[in-house]
C-alpha cells in the first residue's frame, strides 16, 4: 500500500504555557475529502498552521507522501553554511590582523614597482602569518615586526628594505599575534557556521516550502491581495509554474522611434559643430549625438511598450488563459478584472479557492470555506469541493457547517480541546457517543 498523502504523527503545539494541539494524529489518503471538526478554539486552525509551515510544531511530525516535510540538509545548504563560516572567519581575521596596515604592507607597498597579483598575494600571506613586513611611510620603507609594535629598521628603497627584512632573525614576539589571528579565524568561522545553521533550522519548514511541495490553503479570515485584480490574485499564485524567462529581453522589432531621434541627434550635433567652425570634430560629435539620442529613444521605447520577449509574452498569455480557466471553474470569470476587495464575501471565498488551486496543489486545505455563506452558496460550495476532488486534488477542510461536513467528507476527525477524540466516516461520527457529548450535543431533541 502506498503511503498516505498526508500523515500527521503525534503533533503537539504549545504557545507559552498553553497547549493548543496535543499529540494529534491525522491521516489523509490521496483522492479523498477529509474534514476536521470540533468546537471553536479546539486547535483546528493551529493544526492547519502547523501543516502549512506557519507554526513550528513543538513536537511531532508531518509527512507528505511518506516523506518528512522539513527540507533535508542538502549539499547546497552545507556549501552555504561553509561559505557563511568562511566569510565571517575571514572578516574576523582581517579585523584582528588590522586590514588597514595590511593594506599598507601589501597594496601600497606593491604599488610602486608595478602591479603583480602573485607578489601581492605572497605579501598578504606573510602579513597574516605575522612575519616582519615592510611599510612605506613618509617616503621611506620601514621594516616592522609582525605584531606591528616595533620598527626593526628603515631603508630608502624597497629593495634595501627587503634585504634588511630577510636578514632578520626569527621574531618570537609575533607568536601571540599569530595565535590571536588563528583564534579569530576559528571563532569567526564557528560563529558563521552556527548562524547559518540557525537560519537554516528556522527555514526548513516555511509556508513557501510547503506550498512548493503541493500544499495549498485558504484562510479563515480571507487573506486575498485586496488591491490586486481577481486575475492578478490567481496569477501570483501561478508564479512558480510560469517557468524562467528574462523579463526584459527585447524583441528588437520596432525601430520607428529610434531612427528619427538618432537622426535628429546627428543633425543637431552637426549643426553645433559647424557653427563652431570645427568641421574636424563633426564626426565624433555626430556619432555621440546619435548614440545618445538613439539609445535614449530605444530605452524609452521599450519602457513604454513593455518590451517583454515573445517567449515571456506567450507565457503570460498562457498563464492568463489558465487563470481564466480556473476562474471559470469557480464561477468568477466575469469578475476577472475587478479589484478583489470589491467582491462580495462569498465570491472572495471562492477566489481564495481558485488562488489556492492555481499553485497546482496535491493537497488543498480549506479553513471554514462555508463561513458567512448563505444556504444556496453553501450548496454550490459543496458541489465545488466535489469537483475539486474529481480534478485529483485531495481536500482537507475545517468546517462548522454540519451539512457540508457530513455531506462531502469521506473521513472526519474530531478535535476537542486540542485532542483528537474520534475519527471515522460521517455515519460513525454522527453516532459516536463521545463526539455527541463533546461537540454535537447530548440531548435528545432529535
Amino acid at each position, binding site marked *: 500500500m502506498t503511503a498516505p498523502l498526508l500523515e500527521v504523527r503525534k503533533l503537539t503545539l504549545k504557545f507559552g*504555557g*498553553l497547549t493548543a494541539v496535543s499529540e494529534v494524529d491525522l491521516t489523509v489518503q490521496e483522492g479523498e475529502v477529509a474534514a476536521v471538526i470540533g468546537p471553536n478554539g479546539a486547535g483546528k486552525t493551529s493544526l492547519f498552521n502547523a501543516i502549512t509551515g506557519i507554526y513550528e510544531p513543538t513536537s511531532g511530525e508531518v509527512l507528505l507522501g511518506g516523506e518528512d516535510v522539513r527540507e533535508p540538509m542538502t549539499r547546497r545548504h552545507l556549501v552555504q553554511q561553509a561559505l557563511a563560516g568562511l566569510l565571517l572567519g575571514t572578516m574576523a581575521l582581517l579585523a584582528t590582523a588590522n586590514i588597514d596596515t595590511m593594506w599598507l604592507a601589501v597594496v601600497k607597498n606593491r604599488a610602486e614597482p608595478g602591479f603583480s597579483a602573485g607578489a601581492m598575494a605572497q605579501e598578504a600571506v606573510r602579513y597574516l602569518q605575522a612575519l616582519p613586513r615592510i611599510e612605506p611611510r613618509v617616503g621611506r620603507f620601514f621594516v616592522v615586526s609582525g605584531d606591528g609594535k616595533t620598527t626593526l629598521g628603515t631603508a630608502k628603497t624597497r629593495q634595501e628594505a627587503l634585504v634588511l627584512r630577510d636578514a632578520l632573525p626569527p621574531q618570537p614576539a609575533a607568536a601571540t599575534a599569530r595565535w590571536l589571528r588563528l583564534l579569530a579565524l576559528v571563532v569567526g568561522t564557528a560563529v558563521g557556521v552556527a548562524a547559518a545553521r540557525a537560519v537554516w533550522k528556522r527555514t526548513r519548514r516555511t509556508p513557501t516550502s510547503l506550498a512548493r511541495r503541493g500544499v495549498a490553503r485558504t484562510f479563515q479570515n480571507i487573506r486575498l491581495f485586496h488591491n490586486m485584480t481577481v486575475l492578478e490574485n490567481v496569477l501570483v499564485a501561478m508564479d512558480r509554474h510560469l517557468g524562467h524567462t528574462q523579463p526584459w529581453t527585447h524583441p528588437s522589432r520596432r525601430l520607428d522611434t529610434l531612427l528619427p531621434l538618432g537622426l535628429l541627434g546627428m543633425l543637431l550635433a552637426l549643426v553645433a559643430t559647424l557653427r563652431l567652425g570645427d568641421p574636424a570634430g563633426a564626426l565624433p560629435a555626430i556619432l555621440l549625438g546619435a548614440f545618445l539620442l538613439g539609445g535614449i529613444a530605444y530605452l524609452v521605447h521599450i519602457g513604454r511598450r513593455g518590451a517583454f520577449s515573445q517567449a515571456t509574452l506567450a507565457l503570460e498569455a498562457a498563464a492568463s488563459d489558465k487563470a481564466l480557466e480556473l476562474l471559470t471553474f469557480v464561477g468568477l470569470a466575469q469578475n476577472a478584472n475587478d479589484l478583489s476587495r470589491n467582491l462580495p464575501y462569498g465570491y472572495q471565498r471562492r477566489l481564495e479557492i481558485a488562488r489556492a488551486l492555481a499553485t497546482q496543489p496535491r493537497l488543498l486545505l480549506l479553513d471554514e470555506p462555508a463561513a458567512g455563506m448563505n444556504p444556496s452558496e453553501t450548496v454550490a460550495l459543496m458541489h465545488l469541493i466535489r469537483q475539486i476532488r474529481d480534478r485529483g486534488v485531495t481536500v482537507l477542510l475545517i468546517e462548522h457547517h454540519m451539512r457540508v461536513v457530513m455531506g462531502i467528507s469521506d473521513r472526519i476527525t474530531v478535535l476537542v480541546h486540542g485532542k483528537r477524540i474520534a475519527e471515522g466516516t460521517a455515519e460513525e461520527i454522527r453516532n459516536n457517543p463521545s463526539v455527541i457529548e463533546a461537540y454535537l450535543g447530548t440531548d435528545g*431533541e432529535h
Partner: protein
Amino acid sequence: MLNVANMSASYGAIDVLKGISLRVEEGEIVTLIGANGAGKTTTLMCISGLHKPRSGQLTFLGQDIVPMAPHHIVRLGLVQSPEGRKVFPRMTVAENLEMGAYTRRDPDGVKTDYERVYSLFPVLQERKTQPAGTLSGGEQQMLAVGRAMMAKPRLLLLDEPSLGLAPLIVARIFEVIQTLNQQGTTVLLVEQNARMALRIAHRGYVLETGTVTMEGTGVELLADSRVQAAYLGE
C-alpha cells in the same frame, strides 16, 4: 436597557453588519447565535465602542453610546468579556482582576467583588499570584469572566465563553452565567454553542451574514426546525 437599532458596520469595503436591530431588557439573558463570520463579534465590538458603526443607533440606559469612547462605555456599566479570553498573559491572576476594576472608585465594593469572584471560581484564588498566561484555557475563561465581573457590570457582554473548552468546563461557565444573572446582572451572550446558549437564554437572536434572520424566546428558537438544521447539527 440596551437598544440597537438598524446598525450597520463595515471593515474597509466589506460590509459585515447590514442593519441589525436588537434589544436587551434589564435582568434578561439574551443570546446572539450564528455561524462564524455572521457578524456576532462585530456587533459586540460596536456595542462596546471598539469599532464604530457606519450607521444606526445604539442606546444604553437611554444614552446614545455611539460617539462614546470605550472607557466611557465601561463606566456606564456595559462591560465585555472578549472572544478568546484575552487575559493579560504576563500579569498575575490578581492583577488581571484588578484591571477589571480599573474604573471603579469604591475600594470596599472592589474588595467584596474579589471575594465574590473567588467564591465563584475557587481555582482563581489558588492561582492568584500566577501569570495568567500559564493558566489552562478553562481557567483563563473563568478569569476573563471574573475580570469582567470586577467592573461591576449592569450589562455583561460575553463573547464565546465556551470557545475551545471541554464540555464539563463549559457547563460550569454556563452555570456561573446563570448565577450571575440571578444575582442581578443582565447578560448578552454571543455563542457558537447554540444549544447551551439557547437553553439558558430568555430570548435569542439568530444572525446570518450580517442580518438578524430570526428572534424569539430561547425555547421557541430551540424548537425551530431551521435553527435545528443550521446550528444544532441535525
